[in-house]
C-alpha cells in the first residue's frame, strides 16, 4: 500500500515536472526540424514565465497572462528568425544572445513593475483539474493542471502537423534540403520564420506554466537550465515528435524521484541529486550516439544568389 501510494505520487509529480519540458521541447522541435538550432529557448521560457506572470498580475486575469506569454514567445521566435534566417548570423551565438537579452529584459521589467519588495509578489495560479473523485487510488495522477493535459495532447497534434499536413511537409523539406524546397517554389525564409514563431510561443507557454500554474510566483531561478535540457531531449528523441514524451517523462521522473527520496529521509546530498537529471541526460546523449536523424540542413543558414 505504501509503495502504491509512493508510485502514484511519483507518476503524478512526473507529469507535472515534465510539462514545461514538453512545451519547450515541442517548441524547439519546430525550430530544429526546419533547420534552425534555437539556443534562445532558455531565455524564451524565462520570458514566458515573466510575461505571463506580470500580465496576469497586472490584469487580474490568468488567461490574459497566458496570451501575453504566447505573444512574447512569438516575438522572441521572430527575433531569432530575423537574425538566423534573414541575416544568416551564427545560430549558436544568436540564440545565446537572445537568451541573454530576454532574460535581461525580463529582470529589468520585473524590477520596474514590481520594485524591490521583501516578499516576492504572487498571483492566484491556475487550478488543478480533478478528473477522478478524491478517494480513487489513481486520483493524484489525474489531478493535473489544464496546461499539463493540453501539453500531453499537443504531442500527437504536433506529430500530425509535422507528418500529415502541407505545412509540416514544408518544414521537413526546408530542414532537410532547402535548395530543393526553394527550387520547388517554397519560401524557405517564411517557412523557417513561421516554425520559429510557433516554437517560441510553445516555449513561452512552458515557462509560463511554472510561474502561473506550478508556483504562483516569479523567482529569478525559475527556469534553471530547463531550456538546455530541452535541447538535449530533442537529440534524445531523435527529432521525432512522438519520442518527446519519453524523454520528458524520464527527465521529469528522475527529478520527481529525487524530490521524493529526499522526503523519505534518504540522507543523500540534496544538491547532488539535483544534478542527477542533467547527468542522466548526458549519459542518454552518449548512448543515443551520433545524431542519426538530425535534419540535414540544421545549423546551415540558407542563401539564394
Amino acid at each position, binding site marked *: 500500500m505504501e509503495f502504491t501510494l509512493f508510485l502514484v505520487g511519483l507518476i503524478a509529480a512526473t507529469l507535472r515536472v515534465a510539462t514545461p519540458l514538453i512545451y519547450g521541447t515541442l517548441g524547439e522541435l519546430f525550430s530544429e526540424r526546419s533547420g534552425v538550432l534555437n539556443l534562445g529557448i532558455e531565455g524564451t521560457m524565462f520570458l514566458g514565465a515573466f510575461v505571463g506572470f506580470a500580465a496576469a498580475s497586472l490584469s487580474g486575469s490568468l488567461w490574459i497572462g497566458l496570451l501575453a506569454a504566447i505573444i512574447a514567445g512569438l516575438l522572441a521566435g521572430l527575433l531569432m528568425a530575423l537574425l538566423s534566417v534573414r541575416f544568416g548570423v551564427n545560430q549558436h551565438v544568436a540564440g545565446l544572445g537572445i537568451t541573454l537579452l530576454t532574460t535581461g529584459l525580463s529582470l529589468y521589467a520585473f524590477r520596474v513593475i514590481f520594485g524591490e519588495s521583501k516578499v516576492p509578489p504572487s498571483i492566484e495560479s491556475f487550478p488543478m483539474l480533478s478528473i477522478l473523485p478524491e478517494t480513487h487510488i489513481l486520483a493524484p495522477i489525474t489531478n493535473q493542471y489544464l496546461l499539463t493535459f493540453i501539453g500531453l495532447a499537443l504531442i500527437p497534434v504536433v506529430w500530425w502537423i509535422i507528418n500529415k*499536413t502541407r505545412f509540416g511537409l*514544408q518544414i521537413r523539406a526546408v530542414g532537410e*534540403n532547402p535548395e530543393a*524546397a526553394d*527550387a520547388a517554389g*517554397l519560401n524557405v525564409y517564411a517557412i523557417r520564420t513561421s516554425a520559429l514563431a510557433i516554437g517560441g510561443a510553445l516555449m513561452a507557454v512552458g515557462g509560463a506554466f511554472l510561474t502561473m500554474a506550478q508556483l504562483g510566483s516569479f523567482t529569478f531561478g525559475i527556469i534553471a537550465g530547463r531550456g538546455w535540457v530541452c535541447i538535449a531531449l530533442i537529440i534524445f528523441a531523435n527529432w521525432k515528435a512522438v519520442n518527446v514524451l519519453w524523454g520528458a517523462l524520464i527527465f521529469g521522473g528522475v527529478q520527481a524521484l529525487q524530490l521524493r527520496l529526499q522526503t523519505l529521509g534518504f540522507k543523500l546530498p540534496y544538491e547532488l541529486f539535483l544534478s542527477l537529471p542533467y547527468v542522466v541526460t548526458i549519459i542518454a546523449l552518449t548512448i543515443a550516439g551520433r545524431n542519426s536523424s538530425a535534419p*540535414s540542413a540544421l545549423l546551415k543558414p540558407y542563401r539564394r544568389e
Partner: protein
Amino acid sequence: MHAVQMKGIVKRFADLVANDHVDFDLEKGEIHALLGENGAGKTTLMRILYGLYHADEGQIQINGSPVVIHSPRDAIKLGIGMVTQHFTLVPTLTVAENMVLGETGSFTINLKEVEKKVAEASKRFGVPVNPHALIRHLSVGERQRVEILKALYHDAQILILDEPTAVLVPQEVEVLFEALLRLQKDGLSVVFISHHLNEVMQICNRVTVLRDGKLTGTVNIAETNLKDLANMMVGRENFGVTRQGQREQGKVELRIEKINAVDKKGLQALKDVSLEVRQGEILGLAGVSGNGQTELSAVLCGTQKITSGKVFAGDVDLSSAETSDVCAAGIGRIPEDRHANMVGELSVAENLILDQMDNFKKNGILDQQKIQKNAEELIKTFNIKANANDRVRTLSGGNMQKVMLARTLSQNPRIVIASQPTRGLDVGATDYVRSTLLEQRDRGAAVLLLSEDLEEIMALSDRIAVIYGGKIMGVLPAQEATAEKLGLMMAGSAA
C-alpha cells in the same frame, strides 16, 4: 510565336560577367541545345529563366508576352520546369511528397489525388514510378526520372534539362532520349544544356552556343557538324593535349589489392577493387559518377578507411592509414572537391604549407619568411593569378586548383592521385592541369587519374580501367580502348 524568348540578358556576379547580352529563343515543340564549356554561362542563363537568379538587364517573353520571373514559383506557374544536376529532391520524403512540395492549398494533403496525378504524368512520360518510394532508396537514374516527372506533374510545357546525361550510363541515356522524343511529339519544348557534342547532334533540332558568357551563334543541327560546333564552343577545332606516345614503364608504385569500402549511407561502394599503377604511367579510371570513384578517391587520399584489403605505396602499407600517414607517404593528392579540401579563409601561402608545416617551423613557431618565399616561388612556377596573402576563397576555380597542384606537386610525389582534376575549370586551366599531369608522368611518377570525362581519360591515359558498381570491369591499354568498348564496360558488361 516562340515558347520562350530571352533578349539581351546580362548577369554579373561581382566582377564576373556570367551572361553578356545573351539572346536565346525556344520554339514550341523543339529540342534546343544550349552548348558550351564549363563556365560558359549556360546554367546561369537557365537559372534566370527558372527564377533562381535575377538578370541585371534584359527581357524575357513567354508565348509572346513579357514576363518577370521572381522565383521558381513564378516559373512553374508559367509552365517552366527545370531538372538540374543536383537533384532538388528531399531524400527523406517519398516521391508523392516531393511532387506536392511546392503547392499551396489545403492544410492536409490528399494522397489519393496526388497518386492519381502521378500516374497520369507517368503515362505522359512513358515510365512507371512508385509514388510511395523514399527518394533515398532510388538510384541516380530513377531519381532523375522523378525529377522530370515532377516537372510534368506541374504541367510543364517547357522543360529545361541541365547536363542530364552526366549521371547516366549509355543505356540509360537511350531511355532518356526515347522519352524526350515522345514528350516532344506531345508538344513539350525542351532546352537541353550540355557540353557533349555527340548527344547534341543526336537528339536536338537547333543549338545555341555560348562561350565565356557571350552568344557565339544559333544554328540548325541539320546545317552543322561536330567540327563546326566544337569551333563555336572553344574557338579551335581540336581541344585537349596530345600524349607523347608510350614511355618506358617502371616498377609498380601504387598497389591496391581487393579493397572494399562503404559509401556515406553504409552501402558497399568498392567491391574487391584491385589496381596497379607503375612509375611513369597514367592509369585512367573511367566511370560514370556514383559508381565508386568518389570512395576510391577518398580512400587513396586518406580521408576514408577501407573495410578490407590492402593498399601499398611503394613498400609502405597504407591499409589502415590516417590522413597524416598518407601525406607522409609521399602521395600527391588532388581531391575531387577542391573547395571543401582547402581552407578557403586561409591565405594562399598558408594553404600551400598546410600539409607540410614541419618543414616550415622551428620549435613550434612558424617561419613566416620561409612560408612567404615558398608561396612566391610556387605562384611563379605554377602561374597562379593571386598574391601570397589572398584568401584562397577569392580565387577563381582554376587558380584554386593551381594552388592545390602547387602544394601537391612541389613535394615531388612518387604517386599522384588526381580526382576529377578539371571539373568546373575553364579551357585555359583545363589545358594547364592536363599538361601538368603529363609532366608528372614524364618525370616518372605513377599517376592515377579518376575522371568522369571520357575524352579526358582517353587523351591522357596510357592504360584505362573502368569502374562500375564498385567493381573494376577491366583494364585496357590505351591503343585498344575505344569509346564503344569503354562505354559497354561503364554500363556493366565485362571486357
